[in-house]
């Protein structure tokens, strides 16, 4: 499984939660499913599973939520969890794929 680490540019520290989710969805579309999310001290970063056989043409888009428990909604698939910048503040978020 080949993986690629990338950072989010365009002042990603100030991303709103919605903007962060758009970034994750874009990176998944271009590279593959997200497997890890976090930060490098200055920017939000993620690891993506490139050349994953998952069908990208009709994906269920991932959702990013701020969390305190790490729990995902019933039926959803937890993809990863980590500390990222949301509106300039380090927040614990969870990334999951909702049930079909």
């Amino acid at each position, binding site marked *: 499984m*080949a993986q690629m680490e*990338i950072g*989010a540019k365009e002042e990603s520290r100030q991303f709103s939660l919605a903007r962060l989710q758009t970034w994750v969805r*874009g990176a998944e*579309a271009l590279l593959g499913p997200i497997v890890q999310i*976090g930060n490098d001290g200055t920017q939000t*970063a993620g690891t993506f599973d490139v*050349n994953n056989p998952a069908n990208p043409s009709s994906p269920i888009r991932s959702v990013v939520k701020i969390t305190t428990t790490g729990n995902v909604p019933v039926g959803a698939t937890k993809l990863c969890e980590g500390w990222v910048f949301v509106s300039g503040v380090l927040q614990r978020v969870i990334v999951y794929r909702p049930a079909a």
Partner: protein
Amino acid sequence: MTEVIRRTFRRLDRLLFSSVFLHLILVVFLILSLAGCASFSGMPEPVIATAEAVHIPAEFMPREALRRYHAADDSERNGMTPREWRNAVVLVRMGAADARYHEFRINLSREVRGANFGIESTVLGLAGLATVSGEGTANALAAAIAALTGARASLSREVYFERTLPALIAGMEVSRLEIATRVLAGLGRPAAAYPLEVALLDALAYERAPSLDQAIQLVTADAAQEAARARQIYNNVTNQLGVIEEADLPTAEGIRNGLNLLENQAAGGDVTIAAAATAAIDQIVDELGLSVASTASAGEKINAVRIRTLTMTSAERQQFVEAMRGRGVQLWN
């Protein structure tokens, strides 16, 4: 023999259960505990008593010191130049601040260690007593232990938690050292460059530097930074990607799918398909102007292409998809 011991303990239990005797035991324990506190300190006593060390002669008090500092005649300053006078005034003041700080440290150490040690001893003693007592006495003693344990917790909070005390003291030392460095540098300068008025203000700051409140702020800030570092899982992420808007997601997915397909075909078992895929990959690498070693594997070349697509604009990605489609690469399943 066992019966004799049992009877003895029953008598002892009755005796212990009498509230007068119980109170007497508690008082004795507390007195012993407090007596232990008196000599429990984490620092040596100063050679010169604090009361003596903080005594500043009247001529060194600010108003009088400043009057003499500005006097035209050195005789007003016991024969010293203004610079020498300034240095003497400030160093005496800092020496007094040091003495006060040392006293503060001793008291802080004594209060935290002594109080905790004393109460700990009492709790241990009462707990030991409770184990050899009857149920009634044990309950009464358990209540006393609980009260003392609560007192210890409360005391620890009041005197700023024992475990972080070293960090707090280190914080205070840092503040003192910073100001002391500034003052000592100033004392090496001429009187006009570092007048006594400014030096006295710095000396006052030095006096006030060892504040637990400030130290807590310092330690808390350090802890927050430490926590942030602990939350950081990436280092030196070199590849970056901007936001791909929702409308451009199909294009991005086409690129991803096409590159994955080429990579898999190049590594597949069908020689003809693998050769065609390898040729297509080389052509893409050339068209994008990527510097990839000719000996690189198909996967390495595709990764170089993937990295290049991260920095493409929306229009460039669209053109790239069209180029791949024109080359006959399957972009969508």
